[in-house]
């Protein structure tokens, strides 16, 4: 068991810097998820922690020990790869025992650990099979088993579910969560899928273009995104953004003209907002309902309706060209091409300044 701490870590390939000073603390036993769009540096960050990439500058501590120059094997980590990376010429048993065999672990102990891991992962019947005779989900479990038997203090997962089909992905996700609860090991997990991030993490790290955008528990990121990037990334479908202009700022909030009949007062800390500033309103699709009944209306034309059964996503284009998505009940009657009004409450609104930074929200209803 160990803490992991990154201090101002940068990584360059030649002249191109891909990580620009990442600082982060992962406490013992936490399940931290690195999430971000592809190319944001999340995998690079993980590989740096694993020791598979060299650190250009900064310090990496695992369990209180500076490990910048320590090879992967001596860092007390175990990594699960996206491609599973099983040794194709070895049986499941040998795959799991491989690392232990060369760490001079005695045979009985190796056997105990492998069988225990196989039991946890329901792999016992497959121990003598080769990876090519297993399904994708089973291979993934072997890869996890190989990590477990090393009894690492830190588990590293690099997009472990992205090669699995949808149903299996959900199952394995739950398995991984269970596993973390029983092993209580520090876990760092990389994914581009914000649903995985929300469901698994005790703490999410949102990365974008080699920088940390925000760190926090899932619901805090959902309710209080610090900037427009995080707001757009967390949540599905993504948050709607509407341009507006600041009309006035007072203690209760910021009043914004957002192109509809009446301006609205949004309950956020005004901070440095000035009258006349361009701002962006953020409204989550699930907080946007059909009709004007929720207080603050937005009008436009229905462009598409996606019927999911339990809900419908109504795609609306406003007259100024901005697109909105509203999550309506499953029996939505919205018709393509028709004029529509959708509305939300001011409490559900987010507000971002010109630079995309969020104004802190007052609303207690959403407090995480």
């Amino acid at each position, binding site marked *: 068991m160990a803490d992991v701490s990154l201090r101002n870590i940068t990584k360059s390939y030649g002249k191109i810097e891909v990580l620009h000073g990442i600082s982060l603390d992962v406490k013992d036993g936490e399940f931290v998820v690195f999430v971000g769009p592809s190319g944001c540096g999340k995998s690079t960050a993980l590989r740096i922690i694993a*020791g598979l990439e060299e650190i250009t500058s900064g310090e990496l501590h695992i369990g209180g020990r500076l490990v910048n120059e320590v090879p*992967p094997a001596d860092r007390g980590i*175990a990594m699960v*790869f*996206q491609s599973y*990376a099983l*040794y194709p010429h070895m049986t499941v048993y040998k795959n799991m025992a491989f690392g232990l065999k*060369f760490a001079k672990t005695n045979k009985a102990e190796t056997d105990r650990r492998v069988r225990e891991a196989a039991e946890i992962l329901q792999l016992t019947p497959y121990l003598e099979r080769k990876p090519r005779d297993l399904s994708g989900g089973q291979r993934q479990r072997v890869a996890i088993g*190989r990590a477990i038997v*090393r009894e690492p203090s830190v588990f590293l997962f690099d997009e472990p579910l992205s090669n699995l089909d949808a149903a299996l992905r959900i199952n394995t996700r739950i398995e991984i969560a269970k596993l973390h609860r029983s092993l209580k090991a520090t876990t760092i997990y990389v994914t581009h899928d914000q649903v995985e991030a929300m469901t698994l993490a005790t703490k999410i790290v949102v990365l974008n273009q080699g920088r940390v955008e925000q760190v926090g528990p899932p619901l805090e990121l959902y309710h209080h995104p610090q900037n427009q990037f995080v707001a757009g990334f967390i949540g599905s479908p993504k948050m709607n953004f509407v341009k507006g202009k600041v009309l006035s700022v007072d203690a209760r909030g910021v009043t914004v003209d957002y192109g509809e009949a009446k301006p609205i007062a949004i309950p956020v800390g005004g901070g440095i907002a000035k009258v006349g500033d361009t701002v962006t309103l953020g409204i989550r699709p699930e907080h946007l309902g059909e009709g004007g009944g929720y207080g603050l209306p937005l009008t436009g034309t229905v462009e598409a309706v996606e019927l999911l059964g339990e809900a419908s996503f109504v795609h609306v284009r406003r007259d100024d060209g901005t697109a909105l998505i509203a999550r309506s009940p499953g029996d939505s009657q919205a018709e393509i091409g028709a004029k529509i009004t959708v509305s939300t409450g001011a409490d559900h609104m987010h507000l971002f300044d010109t630079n995309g930074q969020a104004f802190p929200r007052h609303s207690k209803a959403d407090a995480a």
Partner: protein
Amino acid sequence: MARHRKINRIAVYTALTGYTLFAIFPIALVMINSFKDRAAIFGSPLALPNPTTFSLTGFQQVLDKADFVTYFTNSIIVTVISLALVLLTGAMAAWALGEYRFKGNTIIGLYMALGIMVPIRLGTVSILKMVVGLNLINTLTALILVYTAMGLPLAILILGEFMAQIPRDLREAARCDGVSEYTIFTHVILPLIRPAVATVGVFTMVPIWNDLWFPLILASGDGKQTITLGVQQFIGQYVTNWNAVLSALTLAIAPILILYVLFSRHLVRGLTRGAVK
């Protein structure tokens, strides 16, 4: 469409069969005639041996000469040791050049590739001078060194290509598993490129076994001749003992044929690998 494909197929098989016959013909001729008496060799060279023409005199003559065993042993020693050295050092060099970034990496790689393009026989005079300088003339060591150098470039190229196909994750998984670089090489990389090793093995082994040039120049002294050189003693300026020559050649073909059959299963796998994931 189906008919078109059938015609295509027949054409392919005809061409392949023709080539096979063409390639096998001289070997078959040698083997068939080695079991015939001298008169039959000249009288009807294409006929199979029959009870009247069947004769093992050639083999008797060859085996009666005690030296033949020596030649045979020499050939085996040279081929096996060269092969082992080429495969081992070639695989290690390919791994090092492909896996690790170090100064001169590209230059060394290019230098090795150059060895494929320049025939080693062009350097015979320099090689001879070197061998004389090293006092290795008339030794099997000289042959082994030359053949190792001869086989390395191609071995490095082919093995390097195969190693590059092994997913990076696999080596990194092994590194995370905490095994040493040597263990990764011997327990992960080598088993996975076995087909490639077999391919390189065949391509390396055959020219060494069949070579006449370097044994003639570097180790033609008594007791150091290889089998190809040994056969030459039956070929005289005025009289050639054809029975003995053909029998000796037949015996010389046998081991390489056996080794080829052993390797060929892997060879085919090596050539078709990558078609299916």
